[in-house]
């Protein structure tokens, strides 16, 4: 068992303010600390029969937590999620998937990959049905591209409401 998983599980959530999903949803379950603790308990058999991927699905592999962490723990990898995008040379996401890239991360996708998440085109999380339509349309529109997003709001909203999002 990687010791880093324990370091995250016992960490006082020092990266929670940079996690776009945790910020957008307000859900503690999205924090690396909570996901690491859950996985640690699941692997120890303390949670009974549980699908461990359910505990970690809110991680979008954006790498913001690793960038912030003083220990540089590779959070996404140890949670069994895909590796975060390389900061110097982002690859195109495979078809049908979104690569989530927070603004300010230093990634500069190629022009053909670049797309806006569309939050400013009508997304309002307080209107759930309209928000779902806008966000789902964005998911289709962005498939195979690198999405540059200021706060991950609609992506995070979709994930929080059960969307499966395989990150490239």
């Amino acid at each position, binding site marked *: 068992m990687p*010791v880093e998983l*324990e*370091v*995250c*599980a*016992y*960490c*006082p*959530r*020092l*990266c*929670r*303010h940079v996690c776009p999903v945790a*910020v957008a949803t*307000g*859900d*503690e*379950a999205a*924090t690396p600390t*909570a*996901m690491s*603790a*859950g996985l*640690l*308990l699941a692997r*120890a*058999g*303390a*949670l009974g029969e*549980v699908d461990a991927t*359910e*505990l970690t699905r*809110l991680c979008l592999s954006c790498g913001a937590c690793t960038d912030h962490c*003083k*220990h540089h723990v590779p959070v996404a990898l140890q949670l069994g999620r895909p590796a975060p995008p390389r900061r110097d040379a982002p690859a195109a996401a495979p078809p049908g998937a979104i690569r989530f890239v927070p603004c300010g991360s230093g990634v500069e996708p190629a022009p053909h990959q670049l797309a806006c998440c569309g939050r400013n085109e009508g997304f309002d999380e*307080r209107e759930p049905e309209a928000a779902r339509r806008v966000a789902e349309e964005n998911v289709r529109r962005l498939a195979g591209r690198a999405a540059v997003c200021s706060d991950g709001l609609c992506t995070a909203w979709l994930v929080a409401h059960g969307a499966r999002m395989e990150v490239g």
Partner: protein
Amino acid sequence: MDLASLGRRVSLSDGLPARLAVARDLWPRQTLRLAHGDPGPLPAAVCWPESEEEVAAVLAWASGEGVPVVPWGAGSGVCGAAAGRADAVTMDLKRLRRIGAVRDARVRVEAGVLGQHLEDALALEGWATRHSPSSIWCSTVGGWAASRSAGQFSSRYGTFPDMVEAMRVVTPKGVVSTGAWSEGGEDLHPWFLGSEGSLGVITELSVRVVPIPEARWLRGYRFATTEGALEAMRSLMQAELHPAVLRLYDPVDTRLAGKGTATRDAGHGAWLRALTDRVERTPALRRHALSLPLALPRLVNGIVRSMASGCVLIAGWEGPADVNRVLAEAGHELLLGAGGADLGPDPGVHWYEHRHEVSYKLAPVFSHGGFADTMEVAAPWSRLADLYAGVREALARHAVVMAHFSHAYQEGCSIYFTFAGRGEEAVYDAAWADALAAAAAAGGTVAHHHGVGQLKMAAAGKELAALRPLYLALKRRLDPAGILNPGRLFPEVDTPEPPAPALGVDAVSRLATLDAHAPAEVRDRELAAAGWVLRHPTPGPLAASTVVVEPWDTAVVGVSARIEGRRLNLPPVPRSAAGPDLRRALPQGALETLTVPVLPAAEAGVKVTSLAPGVRPARVLADGWELRGPAASALAEVCRAG
């Protein structure tokens, strides 16, 4: 429990990930249990209200169902106040996250905003709270108020409760506006600050802000002894020099944490780091690396203390450039004169740049088979040495311990103990039981800024024992079904009635304990005969005082009162967080004595008729302000030039 009904009123999850994530806050006892495979008590569900109305709807549902509600900010509390309960719904407030524009040096902010996000938003407009707890990345504004948080610059700006001007609080019986937003009559502001979610749910606050400091000055000093350094700290705080930062690391903390140097790879610690690096690369060793040293705390404490010599003080000032230069130069001279050796700016700058990273050091202790925790107590200067010795010796029986002194005020200071022990609950519990008893025996408060929670509820309950009837009466009025975070504040404790405090002056702490009802002329004449004057001139009896002080200042430090026939002593300690602070909110008729700040009558002052920004007077007079201390003349020049 009809969760379907609740789900129609508010966003809700009863899934395992959401419940698991709020089963524990950051109480290290729960982290220790996690390390042993115990997830903690999972609540029945988590809900995320997005408005004051939704908070009210949740409380109405819970009152009807008889379901406890645990308000949750970001779960950074270290005493178990927000930990999950199996029979409860946890109310996560982070979707209350609106931040208003700054108006008249106040910002209106919702309770679920994370501290760092508030500072980031304010900085865009040139403002800051300067409330800087080490938890700023993982705590919320509402949580700061509910647990009486204090930040690293509290010496200059006060604690967070000092900054909160008004609140909106939702209770099961309706919405209450407090402080500047109260609509006359009873003001429950002091009750909600420190109520830890047990009286109402704080939803919105008005917080005082300041311009981002124009200048900053940081420096380190080495002192030969802790006692000498503490005396220098006290002199500095009582010289009206108002530093933003004053942190003294005891010899063990100085030695272990390398506070004396900016680069940690040089010197005697290099061999130890080489050894620990080797252990870190060997997983089989790593898990047990701390087993032996933590199992023998007395031995390790003895060795470390014998190796340690000297201690480091970090001092810092910030504010308008002209005022900052005057204050820092005077402070620098004072510290050199008190025996401090100048270490240059590096220790201070290093601390400032890494001031939110200390908690990174705690997690690895758990993964190495131990526990790590911190304890923050406070006392007036006259009792500080006894408090330090008593708590340190109590903890050292069970754990390896070091300490630093921070959150210094004119009347006293906080001590922050960091300790690590063998990873067993029995060891953990014994360390805390002995340390809390030692703090109380030394006359300190058991909480300066971590709040109460489950960890300290018995000890804090004894400290505030006579307040319990008032608390219970208010609780019944606001929360008749008893659903708000029940059983975690003001437990029933058996403690004897304390004696009346002795009247007189504590010259070291510059505090006078006086008859609350003595006529002003008699009180002031007797004080003058003893060589003192009130810091805050008060025309009538102290019990009737309506003196309003600045957020960084304090008008009443201790109180003795009679509540429902029983004496209550709120001890003269600086900025206690042992529950709601009612030092200025008890009924006039109940007061017996008040402990208030005093100044030497013979000390010369300089009167000014206008104040430059950043200049703080020693006394507010009817026709101006009085400046005191070694910087008074230079500050008066700044005021006149302005």
